[in-house]
């Protein structure tokens, strides 16, 4: 068997990037760092109790369910009392930034892939590659290009979180009833009008599921990012692993789980909110809708027949 120097090639390519685009990467790293800093500052600026209240309000707005609100308050109080508040907020900041970037990249890519089967064909193996490549492997070039710290963590997290956004956006748009899209075209809509008024709104539940997945992926990656010096729950866990500190490790893990459950319930509730709220409002407005429909039907049909 001839030896294929793929590893060498990747190494050389990374070196090449650093040699020739090093400054660009530095600028990028700076911007990213600022971004995470801003989000983090906003999160830790208010007293933890105040932020817990805000999180609870968000939970209420998303799902209108008391259980989620109660969970939010109790769970984050627990986090604060474990003395992990700062680390949790650091992690949340990284997750939020990475998720926003992943959605900003993934959703347009998904739309593009849904509209062109050629693009979809090219993107698919790339997504497979991104999703199945062991997560640690992302970290090596990220550290190489962006140095130690929070930035490689954000980059690796983003790269890991993009695929579900692309996939679920693409799926959602492809699942939109072809006849409805055809109707929009038949009434003279431009392609972007079809996208904005028909395809995106109808694909929204799927896109929201994608965003939910993005956040979950980001959260699972963020712990690993602790290995490259990103502050937060990741580093708590990594430290306790190296010190064989069972208690501290468990606390860090528990905080991650709390964050994960909160973000998952929040985004999945927001995804299905539209429909339920609309239905509830309608039911309140016309309690005897079915009866009215029957009457209506008679009114319409009898004079014609």
């Amino acid at each position, binding site marked *: 068997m001839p030896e294929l120097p793929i590893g060498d090639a990747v190494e050389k390519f990374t070196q090449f990037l650093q040699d020739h685009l090093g400054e660009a990467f530095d600028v990028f790293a700076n911007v990213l760092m600022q971004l995470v800093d801003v989000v983090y500052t906003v999160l830790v600026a208010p007293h933890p109790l105040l932020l817990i209240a805000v999180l609870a309000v968000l939970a209420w707005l998303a799902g209108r369910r008391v259980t989620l609100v109660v969970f939010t308050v109790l769970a984050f109080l627990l986090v604060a009392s474990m003395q992990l508040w700062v680390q949790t907020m650091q992690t949340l900041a990284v997750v939020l930034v990475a998720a926003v970037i992943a959605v900003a990249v993934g959703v347009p890519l998904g739309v593009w892939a849904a509209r062109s089967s050629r693009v979809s064909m090219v993107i698919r193996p790339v997504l497979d590659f991104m999703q199945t490549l062991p997560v640690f492997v992302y970290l090596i070039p990220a550290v190489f290009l962006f140095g130690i710290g929070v930035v490689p963590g954000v980059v690796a997290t983003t790269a890991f979180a993009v695929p579900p956004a692309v996939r679920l956006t693409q799926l959602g748009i492809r699942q939109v009833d072809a006849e409805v899209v055809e*109707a929009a075209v038949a009434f*003279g809509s431009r392609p972007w009008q079809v996208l904005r008024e*028909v395809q995106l709104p109808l694909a929204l539940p799927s896109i929201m599921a994608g965003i939910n997945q993005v956040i979950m992926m980001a959260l699972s990656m963020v712990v690993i990012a602790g290995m490259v010096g990103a502050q937060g729950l990741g580093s708590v866990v990594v430290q306790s692993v190296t010190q064989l500190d069972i208690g501290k490790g468990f606390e860090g893990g528990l905080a991650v789980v709390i964050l994960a459950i909160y973000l998952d319930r929040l985004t999945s509730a927001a995804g299905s909110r539209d429909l339920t709220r609309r239905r509830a409002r309608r039911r309140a407005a016309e309690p005897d809708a079915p009866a009215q429909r029957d009457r209506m039907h008679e009114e319409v049909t009898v004079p014609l027949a």
Partner: protein
Amino acid sequence: MIEARGLTKVYGMPRDGAVSALRGAGERRRNAVREAGGFLAVDDVGFSVSAGEIFVIMGLSGSGKSTVLRMLNRLVEPTMGSLLVDGADLAALPQDELRQLRNRKINMVFQHFALLPHRRVRENAAYGLKVRQAPAKQRMERADWALRRVGLEQWADSYPHELSGGMKQRVGLARALATDAEILLMDEPFSALDPLIRRDMQELLLQLQSEDRRTIVFVTHDLNEAMRIGERIMVMRDGRVAQCATANEIISAPADDYVTEFVADVDRSRVLTAGNVLRPPLVTARCGESPVEVLKRLENVEMNGIFVLDETGRVVGVATDKALAGALRDGGTTVESCLGGDYHAVPADAPIVEFCDLAGRHTVPIAVVDADRRLLGVAPRAAILAALAVPKKVRHA
């Protein structure tokens, strides 16, 4: 209004390849395309639709009828053929003008309604106006107007999923009415509805059509529906036109075995008219003739009654042999003295269903008359029964 010539659509291969496969293949076009890796969905279809007409395209699934319909607004790009709408060549339109045309001139109604589920009924009805960026107020007024016409004004603030199928399609109709397009393409619009609602919707369509005559191209696989609403019907089979004629012509003179079989289970009595079973009367009598002559004429054809006409050919009554014999005995000199009213007269365009139960009730056959009651001919019972019977073989008219 619409002039289609040689419309052809090949799926599954690039247009150039399809054109070269079709060229010179003659009758082997279908096979030639298949060998080249494509599928000939529509093969050399030509027809014209005049303004204000309801033109029905009919065929089983896979006959290419929906493809033909979608070529009329270029939702499907024709592989070959020309298409004139109001004298303008549709194929030559740039995308921008094509969108204008779809928005203002040619609208469409879909089989599964194709409403936007996240928009209210009113917003759905206003969709075409929204696309052309009409001001919101005008949009809503126009949508309400259209919803009133289809009887849904009370449902303007509902969402489509609250409506029954028939009501959804009314919204689909309102959406097309609101844009004031002259041409309406309807793709099996009532196929997804249950039979009673379907009938209501057909009535609604005919009523709307009588109020403002649009040009409608209507696709259906239901022959009774086609016969009911279509002025002319194009029957398609395997992408080709099997016959294009009025409902009456298709039933009374089907072009081939396929059409014959197709129309076999149609309610013929509703489509065929008195004109289809019209025969010249064997004998008639004139006012002023003597009973003797008339009675002799009746005996020659072995009949029991005779239509008596005035000098312009109008039916004045029926003279039965009994009455004639009585007049003879009493010394009557003209047939007028023995006229009776024992007959039934129908116009030539009356469907057979309206009078077939009366056939054979009288001594004379049913009279077919024009607007001035002039006798055009008679509809004998045998002719009616023959017309209603399903032909086993093609009858060449």
